[in-house]
């Protein structure tokens, strides 16, 4: 990662991706329902704390995408664990930027109805899990880059 970030092109790409992701997250925070005092309220998650979280997550996502691209350039497929972890991180971050309980209280999977309110009830824990998943993914990606092309 260190050597990647020494290339100005990659730095700009990281920032560009981060801005796009941040814009999407900020839009969701401002327009989608959030939860405040156990009430479904449009835009309730548009708080300074959530904006900082979105900014940090967007940067991590940008870093991950650039690292992933570099790995593919060296014709090496990423580890399954790395992909799964980053997927979990993106999923959790996505589902905690709005109030799932207010938006999609129930989803049907294979004939079973599953409530998604736990994403709202344990919002903070899922946010931390999303951030950790992205950080570990980037760490694993960096390790693989060092192994494959000594370009980590």
């Amino acid at each position, binding site marked *: 990662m260190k050597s990647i970030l020494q290339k100005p092109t990659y730095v700009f790409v990281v920032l560009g991706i981060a801005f796009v992701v941040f814009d999407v997250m900020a839009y969701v925070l401002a327009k*989608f*329902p959030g*939860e*405040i*005092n*156990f*009430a*479904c*309220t*449009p835009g*309730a998650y548009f708080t300074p704390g959530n904006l900082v979280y979105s900014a940090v997550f967007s940067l991590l996502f940008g870093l991950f995408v650039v690292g992933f691209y570099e790995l593919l350039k060296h014709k090496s497929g990423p580890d399954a664990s790395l992909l799964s972890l980053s997927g979990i991180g993106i999923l959790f971050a996505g589902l905690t930027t709005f109030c799932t*309980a*207010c*938006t999609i*209280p*129930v989803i049907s999977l294979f004939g079973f*109805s599953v409530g998604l*309110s736990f994403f709202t009830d344990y919002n903070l824990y899922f946010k931390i899990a999303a951030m950790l998943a992205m950080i570990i993914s980037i760490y694993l990606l960096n390790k693989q880059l060092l192994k494959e092309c000594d370009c980590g």
Partner: protein
Amino acid sequence: MKKDNNSLVVAIVFASIVISGSLVFFATQFEGAGGISESDIEKRVQDGIEEYQYNEAFPLVAVGGADEDDDAVMGDPNAPITIVEFSDYECPYCARFTTQTLPRIIEKYIDTGKAKLVYRDFPLSFHPNAVGAAVAAECAREQSDDATYFEFHDKLYEGGALSTERYVQYARELDLDLSEFNSCINDESKADEVQNDFEDGQRYQITGTPGFVINGRLISGARDYAVFEYLIEKELEN
């Protein structure tokens, strides 16, 4: 000379006792005649802080209480406390309030004639079935009474996805005239009534669901029963 000195000492002691006694006497008289003791000041400051905190926590948004319109009412119409609930049938927190908190409020305040509940609709834009459910409940009420409305209301909050099939099923369970019910749920004027409730809710600073105006004071969200109890008791005191 020595006798004179003794007299002087006695006179000084006497004068001191009389003056001190007088001061104490006047001080107590002054306090009793409208003076404020330290404990009084403390109490007044404490009361002021409590009142400020009360007004901050439960702002007065409708002097004299919120407009009840012609919506369904549960309880004694002359009850001293009026709880106007603005709710959305697709909102999970409204369901939480209905199933967990409302039964306790009914038991302690509505059944005893201390409070009444007025149910008004506040369908949020991101809940596509909320208006339909609100109209269906109004149609159930139109054929019967407020009690039927609340039975229909309870069924809607039981869970599961809202749909026209479910509304018809509930209407059947409540022995309503199905052809009348079906034509009613397609009646545009019922949706206008729901919209009117929504606009009134916005007027009372309702931004999310559930939202409540209790004797003109705003509470937002499916808060714990204790919060509602505190506000209702305070309003009963007043």
